[in-house]
């Protein structure tokens, strides 16, 4: 147990994000309250951190801080994705928050702290760092959900998110405590994996611990039956926060899921959590898709759609417990999360654009009628997002599903994949309904003419281009994902530096 100064390099992105947070908060407090300046400082800072993350060779560090943090290719890939997501969220937020009483520096600071938590989470290889990452992320998100405190809905969203989030944290922690005890005082994931593989007779509270920890994580990814908070919170939160919440925490929580269940607890897959997660995955995608069919609010529809996507992603977690497909499944997960991030950010930004074009700022799906005739570009982009979300080729969403499902088939989950494909077919109905509204229905009078706001249009454009380009050339993204997954710290491969 010695402190190695080069370990600090492994957490360089997190440290930089925290410095940037303090800088932005102090800048607003002491120097200028001009939103444009704050936004430019944040975006330039994030771009620099993105460059550091991608090109400073952080992926080769493996374990740092005595195995608390892993700076491997897997975490670097997700960190880069999370920084990209944060940049787009911050870029869309300025215009959205204009005229509200929200202090921009505080808001940006909270987003950055949540991002920092997620970045710790994707590289966490110890129960303690997992806990700290989850809490750093969640506490900042509770604040963000309720940041428009003058609005009853925003406060209500924060309230529900907070109470249920804190409740689930209790389960997560109790699970960690029991695993700590059952493995004879181990908190490191690699060590836990080794101890479990050598354990002769498993104490009952090890199973209880695995169950409790999975409840905590399933809550964070909004899987059935722990999904009740998500539609309300998504609807009530300010929309840029909603898209941040829909993408970031899900990516981070699935990274933990695959590190914990796919690696450390993979020895217990067959007879402890495998069957349970199988049922949860089926329930999550089926219920998410079926309830999404009847939604008339676009934010709630996207909330249920993201529940369904969590169900598909659970396939990758299940498959990753099989050591032979572990790398394929992890790479599939990374690819899927990338696709999911861009599709959702694009769709939510269009939702902002459409809602802001109405006087009352509502999010009803009828508003999409006839948009194609007035705003063909935005309608085209929204069509791309919807097609990608439903998983039709040649979009990024299709390849995401392809990689995850094929990993699941290789791991032998044929029935589950059949159910997942059937679910994708159901989901086509409600995704394409938006496309049909936009292209085939006449616009309701008075016609919805979308506001001209360059920042939202740019984000929509970037997402649409990435989805189409990467959909045509999925190999490049997949190569990155595979190389990331290959270097992932894995109990069967790594020896920790001590």
């Amino acid at each position: 147990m010695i402190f190695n100064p080069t370990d600090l390099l492994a957490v360089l992105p997190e440290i930089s994000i925290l410095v940037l947070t303090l800088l932005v908060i102090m800048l607003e407090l002491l120097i200028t309250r001009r939103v444009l300046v704050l936004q430019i400082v944040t975006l330039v800072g994030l771009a620099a951190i993105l460059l550091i993350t991608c090109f400073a060779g952080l992926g080769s560090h493996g374990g740092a801080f005595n195995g608390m943090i892993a700076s491997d290719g897997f975490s670097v890939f997700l960190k880069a994705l999370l920084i990209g997501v944060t940049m787009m969220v911050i870029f869309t937020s300025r215009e959205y928050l204009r005229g509200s009483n929200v202090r921009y520096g505080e808001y940006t600071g909270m987003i950055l702290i949540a991002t920092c938590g997620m970045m710790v989470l994707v590289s966490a290889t110890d129960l303690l760092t997992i806990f700290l990452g989850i809490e750093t992320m969640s506490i900042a998100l509770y604040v963000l959900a309720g940041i428009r405190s003058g609005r009853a809905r925003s406060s209500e969203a924060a309230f529900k998110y907070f109470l249920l989030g804190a409740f689930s944290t209790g389960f997560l922690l109790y699970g960690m405590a029991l695993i700590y005890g059952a493995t004879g005082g181990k908190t490191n994931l690699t060590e836990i994996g080794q101890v479990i593989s050598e354990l002769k007779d498993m104490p009952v509270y090890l199973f209880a611990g695995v169950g409790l920890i999975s409840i905590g994580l399933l809550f964070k990814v909004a899987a059935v039956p722990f999904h009740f908070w998500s539609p309300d919170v998504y609807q009530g939160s300010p929309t840029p926060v909603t898209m941040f919440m829909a993408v970031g925490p899900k990516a981070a929580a699935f990274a933990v899921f695959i590190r914990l269940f796919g690696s450390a607890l993979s020895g217990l897959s067959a007879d402890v959590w495998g069957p349970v997660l199988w049922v949860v995955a089926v329930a999550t995608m089926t219920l998410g898709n079926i309830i999404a069919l009847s939604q008339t609010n676009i934010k709630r529809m996207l909330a249920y759609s993201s529940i369904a996507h969590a169900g598909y992603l659970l396939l990758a977690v299940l498959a990753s417990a099989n050591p032979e497909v572990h790398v394929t499944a992890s790479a599939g997960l990374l690819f899927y999360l990338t696709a999911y991030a861009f599709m959702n950010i694009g769709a939510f930004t269009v939702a902002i654009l459409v809602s802001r074009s109405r006087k009352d700022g509502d999010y009803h799906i009828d508003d999409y009628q006839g948009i194609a005739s007035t705003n063909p570009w935005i309608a085209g982009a929204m069509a791309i997002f919807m097609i990608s979300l439903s998983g039709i080729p040649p979009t990024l969403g299709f390849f995401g599903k392809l990689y995850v499902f094929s990993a699941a088939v290789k791991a032998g989950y044929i029935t589950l994949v059949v159910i997942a494909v059937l679910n994708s077919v159901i989901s086509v109905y409600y995704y394409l309904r938006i496309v049909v509204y936009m292209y085939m229905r006449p616009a309701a009078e008075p016609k919805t003419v979308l506001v001209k706001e360059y920042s939202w249009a740019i984000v929509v454009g970037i997402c649409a281009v990435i989805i189409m380009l990467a959909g045509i050339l999925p190999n490049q993204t997949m190569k990155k994902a595979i190389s990331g997954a290959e270097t992932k710290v894995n109990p069967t491969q790594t020896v920790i530096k001590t």
Partner: protein
Amino acid sequence: MTVGLSWYLWLAAVLFCIGVAGVLTRRNALIIFMSIELMLNAVNLTFVAFSRYLTNIDGQIFVFFVMAVAAAEVAVGLAIIVTIFRHKESVDIDKVNLMKW
């Protein structure tokens, strides 16, 4: 008769269940909040008991982190409850019902 590890584990499990029951049955946000704290303290007790039994210090360090994070959570949570009270003049969770299905 000695007080062994299992005594502490059972006590913690009972405390945790009381906390869960409190969250699920009570309607006052502050009481729910207190029940959540009870759950976290049950966790702390489990950690400390294991830590002593296994003579491994990691569990006690974990408890410090849990307490620090719980304090941060209390600060944010009470602020959120205050904003809800400003809107509803009440902290009854049945009255927090603007959004359903």
